[in-house]
């Protein structure tokens, strides 16, 4: 490189570095919009100018000083301004409202065929479990613990007197935590090409059917129905729903289409993400019902049915976005 050219490049670099104040101001402006602290139109126009300035200076820095901190600084400032200009400001409240009011109903509608299939699998598994234990009673040992079987054989449901051992609040927390873990596992295990989801749905269906066959043999089917009806409507629906989301993930991996397996998996996971949040919230509600209402003998059957059906209707309204009128208007 000639001396003249070197001197010229140093002069260019010096002129570039002298704009450090403007870069810093651009970053401050981007941060202000990014955090939703500014909605001034004139400032937004200046941010667009900043974006062009940074692009121009970064292009020069990449050539003149590729291994310098100046280039690294400009890369960061340019990336930040780019992200701020191309994406909206962050408001936690409106983000959650959009998630639950717009994205959730859309995801549930998309999942409708999967939901039909997972519900069918669950019902068939329950029927199979019932038929198996009805025909071969000794097989109940595969599905229920010895304590549960002993309790039913004594003519008592294992849920009787449970509130004497564990307070309702603790019971609720244990129940909804366990249900959320099962529900999330049904979803995540869709990652194994849908086989994990199928396993969880099938196993839970078999267990439910088998337990019903056991209690029926000992004349406790009505008592079990009384226990389950208040919380079970939503709990079982949510299990099928999270299974449907897991099945969608599985199908995306099995039949990815033109987009490719990874891209298809990503699209399915992102689309079904809001459903998981809704499942977790709904399971907290059903856990509270299962802890406070289901084991309490003071609640008559009619009240339990009203609670169960009422909560199920609330779930449908929630999943279809009818609880969020503002979000629907916004959409």
């Amino acid at each position, binding site marked *: 490189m000639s001396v003249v050219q070197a001197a010229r490049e140093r002069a260019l670099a010096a002129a570039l570095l002298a704009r450090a104040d403007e870069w810093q101001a651009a970053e401050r402006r981007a941060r202000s919009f990014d955090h939703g602290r500014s909605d001034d139109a004139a400032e937004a126009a200046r941010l667009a100018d900043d974006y062009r300035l940074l692009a121009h200076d970064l292009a020069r820095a990449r050539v003149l000083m590729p*291994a310098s901190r*100046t280039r690294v600084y400009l890369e*960061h400032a340019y990336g930040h301004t780019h992200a701020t200009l191309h*994406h909206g400001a962050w408001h936690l409240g409106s983000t959650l409202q959009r*998630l639950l009011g717009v994205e959730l109903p859309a995801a549930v509608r998309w999942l409708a065929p999967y939901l039909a299939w997972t519900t069918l699998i669950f019902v068939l598994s329950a029927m199979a479990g019932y038929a198996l234990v009805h025909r071969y009673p000794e097989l109940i040992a595969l599905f229920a613990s010895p304590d549960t079987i002993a309790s039913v054989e004594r003519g008592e449901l294992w849920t009787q007197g449970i509130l004497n051992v564990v307070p309702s609040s603790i019971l609720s927390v244990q129940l909804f935590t366990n249900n959320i873990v099962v529900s*999330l596992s049904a979803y995540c295990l869709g990652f194994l090409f849908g086989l994990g989801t199928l396993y969880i749905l099938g196993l839970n269906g078999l267990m439910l059917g088998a337990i019903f066959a056991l209690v029926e043999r000992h004349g406790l089917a009505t008592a079990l129905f009384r226990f389950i009806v208040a919380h079970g409507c939503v709990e079982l629906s949510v299990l099928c729903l999270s299974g449907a989301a897991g099945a969608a993930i599985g199908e995306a991996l099995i039949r990815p289409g033109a987009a490719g397996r990874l891209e298809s998996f990503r699209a399915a996971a992102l689309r079904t993400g809001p459903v998981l949040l809704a499942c977790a919230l709904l399971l907290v509600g059903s856990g509270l019902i299962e802890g406070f209402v289901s084991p309490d003998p003071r609640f008559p059957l009619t009240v339990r049915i009203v609670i169960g059906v009422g909560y199920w209707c609330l779930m449908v309204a929630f999943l279809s976005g009818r609880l969020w009128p503002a979000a629907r208007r916004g959409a």
Partner: protein
Amino acid sequence: MSSAPQQLSVASVTGIEVALPVAGPGARSLAFIIDWHIRLVLALAWYVVAQLVASGGRSLLAPAGYGQAWFGVVLPALAIYFLYHPIVEVALRGHTPGKRSAGIRVVTRSGAAPGAGPLLVRNVFRLIDCLPVAYGVGLTLMLLTRESLRCGDMAAGTLLVYQRGTDDAELLRNAAQRVGKLDTVGAEIAADLLQRWPALVPEARIRLARQLLQHYLGAEADISEGDELEWRSRVERLARPE
């Protein structure tokens, strides 16, 4: 094999693409370890304080059996420990104290901060990533994928990139004064050294000044013995504007 970090390149209307350096397993693990300590300390702090209050300062042992004390002592501590990542990431838009300390952040493939949906999805898939123990699946995937992605990142379309500090503006202003004699990198180093001079121990001041002079002046460098002030003035002469 190139040692240059993998980059996420995003096309832009200006024609100058945005280039974000992708964080590798090392930086990601460091962030996780810092976050793990934070949530452990927070959970333990809650447990100790709540248990001391519940037992009237008599015992730190967990409440026997399930009671209201368990509800107020153990449960919040578990919630802090297990819900730390999803709550902090959604509230801080992909940042956590650990990621901040490690200088990394979560971004989408368009270079933007992710929304609540992708952040929840990437956290739900921790259930898979943490299998069978100690994030075995997640670490293996990170080592095998070009962009160091764990399962949660694949699902959510996110990745972790390095986030540079924004406090370099003053340094760049100083460097602008010194580009006359040095090349840009040399000007930055000289400005950095002079800026950090008071904070360095005397041996480090002299060692760094000697290295800088030898690198840019070669055999012409004056590296005779001298006190700290002498070395500083040599660096200032080297970095003086023309």
